[in-house]
């Protein structure tokens, strides 16, 4: 997309011809151009192949801003701050699961608070506990028995983020998040039990503990009220100050502040905390997942224990070093529905994965398949170390509901071998497989563009939707 109007840089959309057809009339392209107008943007305003219309940034949008004279935009991260995916590998086999799939999905559905208004009475924290949790990092969860010490070794930056500051978070954010720790979230958030269907790179798969036929658990947990309120607070604050900093906005939701400003520092500190918190959320799910899986192998409980797995975020703004026009520079990379995918050898990848590249989890829709990828060198030269994050919606929620009318979606999915339980039928209709692009096509684009490499394909057997 050539630079025009108030754009400071050009736009690049990674897509196949077919995916481009879906995007041609989508406002996501206008949003790519809007992001290109923000001050201090470097390189290009990017859209990954799963891009679609968002609010402010497109979903699937990536943009980097010069740390010296650029901005941070809370609308460029969205309200799903650090919403992300976790993958666990179980020692169970397909034969352990298949005869008991319905019972297992029922047990997981009962054990994991999903959907809107989901609260955990067992995890409700006092304000004091909540602040202790924010200060102590992922260790807090492990000490409370909701995770394993080995988790800490594979979490990015060991589960402690420099600059994250509990005082940067409003009382309102703390209050909104207090009862939601350890819940999954609603809409497109889910817990999926599946199998490794195909392995494309045996070496990388081996490092990740995956092999054909292995049973996996994938968790897409939402930002929850804590993250939603951090975003809401920051958008309102930056909406107030953007004009004062002389920033002209193509869309009010793109409000932003210079990276050195108090508003920017406060937002980055609060956003980092949300990530700190979510380091604990999936860990808090873990004992429940093996708990459900344990029912499948009552006589051999040890086999139900899962590997610690991989955790990846896809809505984030982060200060990183990248090479832009031949020069190394510090930039604030915004990934709105995009995943960091650093190549093999990068020193910011946890040591356990450094030789294969940063693991990337790409969930598809609930009826087809999902992918495990690893970062590749092209990501550093083309996309500020980023790749796609999912299939990407192709149908609006109302269009999906119209398409679902008169159909028995749960039975259709059952016929495809996928048992689904959901907190609400509206979710099943809005999240139906046809509402999404074919994730295989999205992954093909990032694989061939050299942003990341295919490692394995997972097929779903049982899904719990929020």
């Amino acid at each position, binding site marked *: 997309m050539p630079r025009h109007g108030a754009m400071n840089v050009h736009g690049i959309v990674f897509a196949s011809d077919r995916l481009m057809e879906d995007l041609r009339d989508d406002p996501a392209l206008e949003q790519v151009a809007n992001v290109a107008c923000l001050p201090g943007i470097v390189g290009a305003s990017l859209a990954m192949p799963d891009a679609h219309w968002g609010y402010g940034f497109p979903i699937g949008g990536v943009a980097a801003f010069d740390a010296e004279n650029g901005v941070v935009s809370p609308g460029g991260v969205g309200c799903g701050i650090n919403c992300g995916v976790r993958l666990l590998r179980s020692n169970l086999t397909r034969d352990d699961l298949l005869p008991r799939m319905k019972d297992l999905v029922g047990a997981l559905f009962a054990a994991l608070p999903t959907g809107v208004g989901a609260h955990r009475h067992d995890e409700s924290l006092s304000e004091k506990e909540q602040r202790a949790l924010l200060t102590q990092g992922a260790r807090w969860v492990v000490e409370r028995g909701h995770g394993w010490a080995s988790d800490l070794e594979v979490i990015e930056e060991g589960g402690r983020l420099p600059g994250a500051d509990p005082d940067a978070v409003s009382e309102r954010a703390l209050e*909104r998040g207090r009862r939601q720790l350890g819940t999954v979230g609603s809409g497109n958030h889910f817990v999926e039990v599946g199998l490794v269907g195909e392995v494309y790179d045996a070496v990388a798969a081996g490092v990740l503990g995956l092999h054909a036929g292995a049973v996996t658990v994938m968790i897409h947990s939402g930002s929850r009220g804590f993250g939603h*309120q951090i975003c809401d607070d920051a958008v309102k604050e930056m909406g107030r100050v953007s004009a004062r900093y002389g920033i002209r906005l193509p869309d009010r939701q793109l409000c932003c502040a210079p990276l050195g400003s108090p508003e920017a520092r406060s937002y980055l500190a609060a956003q980092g905390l949300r990530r700190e918190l979510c380091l604990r959320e999936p860990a808090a799910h873990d004992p429940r997942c093996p708990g459900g899986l344990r029912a499948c192998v009552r006589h051999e409980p040890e086999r139900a224990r899962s590997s610690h797995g991989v955790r990846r975020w896809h809505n984030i703004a982060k200060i990183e070093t990248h090479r832009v026009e031949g020069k190394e520079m510090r930039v604030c990379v915004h990934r709105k529905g995009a995943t960091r995918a650093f190549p093999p050898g990068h020193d910011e990848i946890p040591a356990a994965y450094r030789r294969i590249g940063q693991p990337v989890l790409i969930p598809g829709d609930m009826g087809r398949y999902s992918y495990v990828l690893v970062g590749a060198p092209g990501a550093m030269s083309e996309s500020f170390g980023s790749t796609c994050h999912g299939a990407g919606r192709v149908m*609006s929620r109302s269009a999906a509901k119209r398409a679902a009318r008169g159909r028995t979606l749960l039975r259709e999915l059952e016929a495809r071998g996928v048992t689904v339980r959901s907190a609400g039928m509206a979710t099943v209709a809005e999240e139906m497989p046809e509402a999404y692009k074919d994730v295989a096509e999205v992954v093909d684009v990032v694989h061939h563009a050299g942003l990341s490499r295919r490692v394995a394909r997972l097929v779903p057997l049982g899904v719990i939707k929020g």
Partner: protein
Amino acid sequence: MTPANSGYQFLDHTGDLALMVRAPTLRELYGASAAALFDVILDIRTVEPRHEVPVHVHDAADEEDLLVRFLSELLFLHDARGWVFHACRVDELESDRFEGVALGEMFDPERHTILRQVKAVTYHHLLLHQDREGWSARLVLDL
């Protein structure tokens, strides 16, 4: 309260949910917008006006910002404190200030079924418009 000739319709949006809300006056648009927001979250016919919860919004940048801040306040009261609303009463309305009450009750799982979670009321494609037929607001909700 929500007047009979107020209402809302869904607009097409791939990722999230866009609404067009209409009402004869700006004050009534606040009630209609509150009703529309909560009708996305649950069936508001199941919400009874058992309580009046005070809502104050000050220092908005303009009328559009005031409407978004007002709806964000209702969303906070819902998500953090468990309220569900179906209408509001406006006591004072200026371009930067809202004083009034939201009418509703505490979420009761026996009677209320939550349909969707709304993360935020956004400023994207936000439009507040007056014409001969009254007022309208275009709102994009982050789901």
